[in-house]
């Protein structure tokens, strides 16, 4: 039985009330011929929880490591609270870094792992043994793992290791918390629990936090703002609603959720796909265009219509609360339609039924 999150266990935190902003200016980073970061700019507000979202190789981890000081940019500047931190050594940056595979010290107990950051301080600022003990136990209480203090990392489960890594990072009272794929190595159930837990933790501590993920669901659920990255560049920055509802580029549209693609031409402000007309007011006339429609934004009808896309249902897959239909459309690859269980039952759809598709929402991106 997992106990609930208890904010009263939080240790007093110096960054509370004085969280830190981060400015990233014109950062370039290359590894040989590979451009990891391409002239990247990003402002991170004080106290926010920011997600760097993108496919593998998009540069998100490199950016995180540059913020931490574990990697140096070829060009550009990092400002911590308005001060240039580009040449500040990682050990002076006061960042808490949680590694993807936790990087716990394998020969130390959980207690010693969390105490490490306090023990390595110079003699003048090193707390006494009693203070260290209290602080470590407070932190272990915060991550609800006080009872594991004497265990070794190899004796912990993945989720436990993750939380110990977090406690260890928080022990040094970091000004920024950086997490590299924090839930990547965990199974789905633990991942969902930890996700909510991290969000609640952040709401209590208000420490500026950045986490890297390739999982759009994770980014949308946890973050205040999401930065969608691709090929070393930022595609879009916005709240989870903004990036999901109004994707600025085809990449963002495709990366955040499933999508059907239709190739079309814009003719006098309209793009036509198999009879259905999609408004494209700002697109230049007579250009090729790609129309994106999400599977759950398509209505199904049995009534033949000139302004809908005609097709035949070829597959039906029941996925718990939703149902996915695959519809074959002449001259096009199969279209996916997602219905709620009720709408599927109301329609009494069967494989082989002729059907007309009506996109409720669609976005048109013209080439170039």
């Amino acid at each position: 039985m997992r106990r609930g999150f208890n904010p009263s266990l939080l240790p007093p935190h110096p960054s509370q009330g004085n969280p830190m902003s981060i400015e990233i200016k014109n950062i370039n980073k290359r590894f040989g011929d590979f451009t990891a970061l391409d002239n990247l700019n990003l402002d991170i507000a004080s106290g926010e929880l920011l997600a760097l979202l993108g496919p593998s190789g998009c540069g998100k981890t490199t950016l995180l490591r540059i913020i931490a000081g574990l990697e140096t940019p070829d060009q550009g500047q990092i400002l911590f609270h308005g001060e240039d931190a580009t040449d500040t050594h990682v050990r002076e940056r006061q960042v808490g870094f949680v590694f993807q595979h936790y990087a716990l010290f394998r020969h130390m107990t959980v207690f010693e792992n969390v105490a490490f950051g306090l023990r390595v301080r110079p003699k003048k600022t090193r707390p006494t043994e009693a203070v260290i003990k209290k602080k470590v136990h407070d932190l272990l209480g915060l991550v609800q793992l006080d009872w594991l203090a004497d265990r070794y990392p190899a004796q912990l489960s993945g989720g436990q290791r993750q939380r110990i890594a977090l406690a260890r990072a928080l022990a040094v009272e970091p000004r920024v918390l950086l997490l590299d794929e924090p839930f990547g190595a965990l199974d789905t159930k633990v991942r969902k629990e930890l996700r909510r837990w991290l969000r609640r933790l952040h709401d209590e501590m208000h420490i500026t936090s950045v986490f890297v993920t390739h999982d759009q669901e994770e980014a949308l659920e946890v973050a205040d703002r999401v930065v969608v990255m691709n090929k070393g560049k930022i595609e879009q920055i916005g709240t989870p609603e903004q990036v999901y509802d109004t994707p600025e580029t085809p990449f963002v549209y495709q990366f955040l959720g499933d999508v059907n693609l239709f190739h079309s031409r814009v003719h006098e402000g309209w793009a036509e796909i198999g009879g259905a007309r999609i408004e494209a007011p700002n697109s230049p006339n007579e250009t090729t265009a790609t129309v994106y429609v999400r599977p759950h934004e398509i209505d199904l009808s049995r009534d033949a219509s000139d302004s809908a896309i005609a097709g035949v249902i070829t597959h039906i897959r029941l996925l718990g609360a939703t149902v996915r239909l695959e519809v074959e459309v002449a001259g096009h690859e199969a279209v996916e339609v997602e219905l709620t269980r009720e709408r599927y039952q109301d329609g009494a759809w069967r494989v082989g039924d002729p059907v007309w598709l009506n996109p409720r929402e669609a976005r048109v991106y013209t080439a170039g």
Partner: protein
Amino acid sequence: MAGASNNVHRSIVTTESRSVRWLLTGLALLFIALFLVVPLASVFYEALRKGFGLYFQALVEPDALSAVKLTLIAALISVPLNLVFGVAAAWAIAKFEFRGKSVLITLIDLPFSVSPVVAGLIYVLMVGAQGWWGPWLIEHDIKIIFAIPGIVLATVFVTFPFVARELIPLMEAQGSEEEQAAMTLGASGWQTFWRVTLPNIKWGLLYGVILANARAMGEFGAVSVVSGHIRGETNTIPLHVEILYNEYNFVGAFACASLLALLALVTLALKSFVEWRAEKQAEAARRDATE
């Protein structure tokens, strides 16, 4: 019961017939007895053939004592040197990317691929009386060849790779994330090394040191070239054994040889203990993890 009969069934399917098994096991044991056990036993047999009295007399004779002393000196200097160098080289190779890394790895292996005699000759060529720096050294009254420094140099050379070779694969497997984590937590390079890196490699390091020590004390070829075989002065135990043997002093030769054989046995025991400790630690961690 079903499980047991299954096992029996499986073992019949997956093994050879009884006669083949006996033959192969017997051959292996015979080979080990013939080439390892019998020679080792014969060393002690020959050494003790004329009684314990003569055996101990051969060991406390001044020339023998001096050989033991020199061997210990050579090992005491070369092993710590190789320990420091081995850790530094393994650290550099395993944790950093730099130009010329593969060249460095090859260089570390050089003493393994070069004949020990050549290794000794290299020093004679460089610092011998007729060598490159010979005249300068004579002028300043520094004796290296046919003296203790030469023996130490040759020993350092032949034991060069042991510690580094043992540590490089271990450190590469461990990666550098723990060190990075230590740095983000504010640890200095020195603190990171002592508190994180060293504890993680201690058993591998000890293993490398044990092997390097065995080689340092047992080295013959390279040391033989630079030593000059001066009795009571520049003879190590292996060289002393050879001289005694050539003089038909078999009891003396085998008595000293038994020291080296004992060293080998102690090394093996230590090595097994270190392996057992490391394995036990790993096993305990695995067992607790699956609890």
